[in-house]
């Protein structure tokens, strides 16, 4: 039953992997060949965490298991918080989290699956652009800047033909209708990253700290999950919201002004966010917990950065080998591009991939 259930997706992924390895033959080793080198691997890995990278994890797991038939990996997308708890308690060997571990959560000996003297590593392996989606009659190419976006979501701009929006969209046929701004009602990494952008880029309007839960001080409609927000924006009129770019469907996606340029939520522009970020200070050289700079030039500033949480040093060396091999594949060019085809994430730049490889190689 197990093999029957997995046969179809496996075949699909295998096909796409072959396709990719064909067109990128001169680049990094394709998983089929890297699998050959690691084919001695066997065992079980269990991961838990962010649902944002659920599709990507499924893709990675399928490809990795095809290349390494002896390995079984499970990832349950129960949420970032559940993932961090499970990783700390030792229930899983790696976790996915929409934020890096905070300073007070880090520390040697706090992670049951790691060796007693080992800290955790935060590896940003999944970058997903967040689109500002809208459905406004007669408007097809909406342009916004940070202050205007913040004012719309803070309820300070209430109609579409507001001078601030009109100034950014010369010639657009903006209706006089009321704006219905939709946000997430659940605690989510998407909201945390979106409000982080508003707090960093428009501090004069957005006077709240970034948070996974929408601040009650700002009005607007709430809907559950990405699907809920997309549904509310879709079924309403003159609506605006924010959602994972890959889930936006046929809705319009606003272009965001950064410096003097406008950027849409493209993979390349979003991946630059990670390149422009600085490392959180006080962490080890191999830890890539990032402080994102949402105001840097030449990037699309609203993206979700999800981390893989692993140990510096696993208590069990066979687990360490499995994690190294699997997370190594995730952070490789092949892994990033395989996920992009399915999940619509922004592949990490070659530079970032190299940095992560050094970190992953250091796992013991």
């Amino acid at each position, binding site marked *: 039953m197990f093999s029957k259930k997995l046969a179809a997706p496996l075949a699909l992924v295998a096909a796409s992997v072959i396709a990719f390895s064909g067109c990128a033959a001169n680049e990094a080793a394709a998983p089929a060949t890297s699998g050959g080198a690691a084919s001695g691997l066997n065992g079980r890995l269990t991961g838990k965490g962010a649902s944002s990278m659920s599709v990507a994890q499924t893709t990675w797991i399928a490809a990795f298991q095809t290349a390494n038939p002896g390995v079984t990996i499970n990832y349950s997308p129960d949420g970032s918080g559940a993932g961090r708890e499970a990783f700390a308690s030792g229930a899983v060997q790696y976790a996915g989290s929409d934020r890096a571990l905070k300073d007070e959560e880090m520390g040697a000996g706090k992670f049951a699956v790691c060796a007693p003297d080992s800290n955790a590593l935060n590896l940003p392996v999944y970058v997903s652009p967040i689109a500002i989606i809208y459905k406004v009659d007669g408007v097809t190419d909406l342009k916004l800047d940070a202050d205007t976006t913040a004012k719309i979501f803070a309820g300070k701009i209430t109609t579409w033909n507001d001078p601030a929006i009109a100034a950014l969209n010369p010639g657009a046929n903006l209706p006089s209708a009321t704006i219905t701004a939709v946000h997430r009602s*659940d605690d989510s990494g998407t909201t945390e990253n979106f409000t982080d952008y508003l707090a960093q880029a428009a501090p004069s309007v957005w006077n709240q700290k970034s948070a996974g839960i929408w601040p009650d001080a700002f009005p607007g409609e709430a809907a559950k999950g990405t699907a809920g927000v997309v549904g509310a924006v879709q079924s309403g009129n003159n609506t605006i919201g924010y959602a994972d770019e890959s889930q936006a469907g046929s809705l319009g996606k606003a272009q965001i002004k950064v410096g003097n340029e406008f950027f849409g939520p493209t993979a390349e522009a979003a991946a630059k966010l990670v390149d422009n970020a600085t490392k959180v200070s006080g962490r080890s050289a191999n830890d890539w917990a990032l402080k994102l700079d949402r105001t840097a030039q030449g990037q699309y500033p609203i993206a979700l950065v999800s981390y893989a949480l692993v140990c510096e040093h696993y208590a069990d060396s066979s687990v360490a080998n499995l994690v190294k091999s699997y997370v190594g594949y995730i952070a490789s060019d092949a892994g990033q591009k395989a996920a992009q085809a399915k999940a619509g994430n922004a592949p990490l730049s070659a530079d970032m991939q190299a940095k992560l490889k050094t970190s992953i190689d250091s796992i013991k």
Partner: protein
Amino acid sequence: MSTATHTRQAPEDDLALVPAKPRIGDKVFTGLSTGAGIAIFVILAAVALFLIAQAFPALTSTPEMLQSRGYGPFWSWVAPFAFGTVYSAFWALVFAVPVAIGIALFISHYAPRRLASGLGYVIDLLAAVPSVVYGLWGANTFAAALQPLHAWLATYLGWFPLFTPPASGTGRSMLTTSLVLAVMILPIITSLCREVFLQTPKLHEEAALALGATRWEMICMAVFPFARAGIVSAVMLGLGRALGETMAVAMVLSGAGVIKFDIIGQQNPNTIAATIALNFPDASGLRINQLIAGGLILFVITLAVNMLARWIVRRRAAFSGAN
């Protein structure tokens, strides 16, 4: 059971004091029913114990601690959600009870027998629909369909505090949510009321009719007084479901941590159950404790409401037409 056996034995001598020959069936049945009775207490106590134990860290943390590592000071955090829970359930009852009693009366006293049994079956089917289906329907279809009504209410009845503009742009308001809840609790209230109405003694009904009462007067004089306790029980069961409903509210309601009486607006007080469902997946540490403490408050609210209902039923029982 055993007392009945005693009295049936020859009363003229003292043989009545000799216990009846115990039968295996009696023992098994007594054991089973006592066990079931005790089990419900054990289960309830276990739930309460779990809630208290898990909620304890949040309840004993300082407000500053909860501000930095939880969702904020406990009582000011939970108050809007407790309000939202009771408020949404209240509106659900306002919408559901008259309709439910109407349907039940129609089935028991007005409809031709064939239609009645078919209709009763259809109503019971409503109870079998999973709440996530109600949630999907409410969020994607019903809310959008009701949005024009929201706009209309805000425009023409905006002076009334319940309909303060601006109206919700998508229709995911307290009004829509409590209407969805009303549909969900309708079958429970209807089925129970129907059964109770059917229990009205035929003699009472015929006596009322014989005195010259119309059918409506007969229902007021004979059926309602007899069924009052039953109606209250039915409403309480419905209320219990409305208070605890999670998925449908989480999907339909545009909720926030605010206390507002306006039922057509964008920001509505969320319910405790929906708040737990929305935040639990991403919660960790003290936040989990705080959410469970919210669950404890919901447990207390439900318990209080039920006890109040029991008290009303007992107080009214003396005056009901049933005796």
